[in-house]
């Protein structure tokens, strides 16, 4: 697992075709890479750089801003337990301790079988439903330690796989944009560096 597969390169070209500048596709392509390997590999970043005309360092510079892109392997299920104020008041700490004991790992690490990664998260914007957590960014609200056990059992048994795909899969349905709706590459002369108002005048 390294560079994008042939199938994904085809998808990548389709995605690039949606933008007037190839570089604009960098983040969608990083998602594609993360979906392919479960995390963003160095080889994939170099490959994306080749596809969009950027250096590997530039792709890495962009990717490393985003918490949701992982550069080391993570488990199939990434469990983010919110530890910010509302959740903390409603028992997030106990939930974290319970998860650590149940999985036998510390926060921020991955089980030996590569199934689960535990992470402490900042506010997930569900304060009324505290304490909350996400599995691969799918919410679970008002989670009790018992419910967490059940969740881990279900995930291990694979009964939730239709609802919660493996880490890296953004959506189970891939967005398709007909080619004629994509902006596509335009003549370089018409691309300006500065923002342009709708009537075509330079913004500044």
């Amino acid at each position: 697992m390294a560079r994008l597969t042939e199938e994904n390169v085809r998808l990548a070209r389709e995605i690039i075709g949606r933008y007037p500048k190839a570089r604009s596709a960098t983040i969608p392509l990083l998602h594609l890479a993360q979906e392919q390997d479960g995390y963003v590999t160095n080889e994939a970043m170099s490959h994306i750089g080749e596809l969009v005309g950027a250096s590997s360092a530039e792709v890495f510079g962009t990717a490393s801003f985003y918490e949701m892109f992982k550069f080391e392997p993570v488990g199939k299920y990434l469990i983010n337990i919110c530890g910010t104020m509302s959740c903390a008041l409603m028992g997030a700490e106990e939930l974290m301790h319970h998860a650590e004991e149940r999985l036998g790992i510390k926060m921020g690490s991955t089980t030996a079988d590569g199934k689960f990664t535990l992470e402490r998260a900042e506010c997930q914007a569900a304060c009324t439903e505290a304490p909350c957590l996400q599995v691969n960014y799918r919410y679970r609200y008002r989670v009790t330690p018992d419910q967490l056990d059940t969740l881990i059992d279900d995930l291990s048994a694979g009964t939730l796989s239709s609802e919660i795909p493996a880490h890296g899969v953004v959506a189970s349905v891939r967005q398709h944009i007909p080619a004629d709706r994509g902006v596509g590459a335009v003549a370089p002369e018409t691309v300006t560096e500065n923002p342009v108002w709708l009537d075509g005048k330079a913004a500044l």
Partner: protein
Amino acid sequence: MTTIDTTDTNDLPPQDPNAVSITINGRTVAARKGDLIIAAADSVDEYIPRFCYHPRMSSVGMCRQCMVEVEGPRGPMMVVSCMTPVADGQIVRTDTPQVKRAQEGMIELLLANHPLDCPVCDKGGECPLQDQAFSHGAGESRFVEEKRHYEKPIAISELVFLDRERCILCDRCTRFADEVAGDPLISFTQRGNNTQVMTFPDEPFASYFSGNTVQICPVGALTASPYRFKARPWDLEQRESTCTTCSVGCRTVVQSSRDELLRYQGVDSDPVNWGWLCDKGRFNFQSINSDDRLSTPQIKSGDTYAAASWSDALESVARVIRHSREGSVAILGGARGTNEDAFMWGALADAVGVTMRDAQLDDGLPESVFSYAQATIDSACAGGTVILLAPDLKEELPVLYLRLRDAVQKKKIRLIEISSHETGLTKYAWKSIRAESGTAAGVIPMLLAQADVSAQLSSGPVVIVAGRPNLAESASHTMDALSAVLAVAPSASVLPVLRRGNVRGALSLGLAPRNGNDAAAILEASAKGNVDCLILLGADPLSDVADIDLARRGIAGAKFVVAIDTFLTASASHADVVLPAAAYGEKDGTTMNLEGRVTSVVQKITPHGTSRADWMIAVELLTLLGHESNFTTLSDIQDAMSAAVPGFGTTTTAVAIKRDGVVVSVAPPSSAPAATSVAGPRNSYEFRLDLSRKLFDRAIGTITSPSLANLATEANVFIHPLDLDRVGAAEGTNVRVTNSHSSIVLPVRASSSVPRGTAWVPFNQIGADVRELIRRNESIIDVRIESM
């Protein structure tokens, strides 16, 4: 609108429509539309503190240090002066308490995360952060918390170290790498709380221009290995000079401490280098300090050299010249020295009747290239079309590459490239076509006749950058290609791409071939036993002449060889007498770049051992040979040079010329044009050999600079991936490269930048020498490649 004082306008020139008048701290400042406030302030020496602003790069407003007040409709407003353009009637204040407070606040914030390890920092003493913390800071810090920590320093390339604790994230190095060098190998990563400059994992900052980032870093975050912990800025003495590593002639300062060269820094010369240097030019000062330098004259006895006194060595040379048959003394080289060196050796050659002389080593173009209308770097970059019939400029003339790349990026010019393999400028070219070596002249009429190309050519001035792209191809092919372009664009001017720093000066001032007796003819004559005394003036034919067989026969055939050099080079070690020459930085004088621009080079340190400037050796020999010589100082030579060489007026002596130098037009005597050679039909050898230089190779100045010595790569032959399949060899395995002359073994690599049917070999890398296959009487060289 400001009211115009009518009493002043009478003697003013007509109003420039772009003229803008602003007020800075009560002073009226003339500026132009689009100028930034900080630039307008600089023009009248109103200093605004700054870290990220650099006049040669785009403004980004990263550091927020340059805040000033601008009068607005709702009162004074704080703006970032490096992002705010001037406007007519604008009122700017840089001295109010509010501005002072804002600037002090910025310094405090920048220092909050700065380790303040100035006592052990190389930048201490010349550090913009340190200086401006004193000049524009509050003096006291309120920060008592623990600072951030990073591993320090980490090597981001062979030459550059990064200390992330010191970094203030001004974006200068990353902007330089992206905008100026076009090698965006460093970038901000982990943006947010932990933003840091970093390379891609396992992909070092291997840019030819990486040293510039060290120079423009406003703190000690980037340091270069050759200078780390070598000196403190207040111990350095410096003089402004010109780099003579290649023929671009970048302006530099040469810095030394305790009579040892320690650093070169780029100086902003507007018509030439804009402050940039390549890493080779920046770091090869190490070779001047090398212990391997020749320090005393040596006379060969048997197989060993014995140190000799200058008088004995010079007398033995003079004796040989005296007893040489008429017309059997030859001088090769001179392009590594100054104009004065070349002029004196030319004068010596004239006095002794030397007809065989050449400053080039069969690797350049005939001097007739100077007879066309000449372009300058500025005129090439100003607008119109630039046609490249040249070697890879990124490899050979890196700063010219920067200038042309900049002009393309700013949409000032369009490049048309005709080359035998892809070069550093290919991706910036408007049209880039691959013409197999020897065929460019045939392709050009068709290419330039295309409707869009001819429209482009007629839309503005045309400059042809002409040089030898392939050392295995005769110069006549380049000259034919040049003529083919000039036939279509007769008003085009030519920028000759020359190898070695002062080729143009040496050719113009007396070391140009006479009667077509160029380096190849001289070596051929020597091989036939017709040279009694061969003088190698900083020339190393065994390393540089493409036809190595000719060089070997030439050196072996000479009855007596004198080498005047800084090192015992491959050729010098065959000499009967070796004279140690003063190197760059050890002598004063002037040099001439590829445009014909004359600038000064200066002495900063004492010459190594007893070595002497080339001109002194010429003067000594002139006297020993019984000729009257009134030359005792450099200015005597400069006076004589100004008098003797038309176009080399008094304005061009070292004292008179300023930073940007003076472009002179001196036509070297044009020797008889070489016979036009036509590439023969492809023989049974299916690959055409393409031999070209890389920036870092096994050249003596590079391998004697420890920090550059490792940058030469292993010798490889590069062929197209499909050709690799056809040859049936695996990537990296050895193949046999053969033609009728010889056969060598080289590792093969696939490269899609090489067209099918071409075998590209970088010159003078580590490993087998492909020059064994080259004979200069064949205008192109075809080879066979077989897997082993």
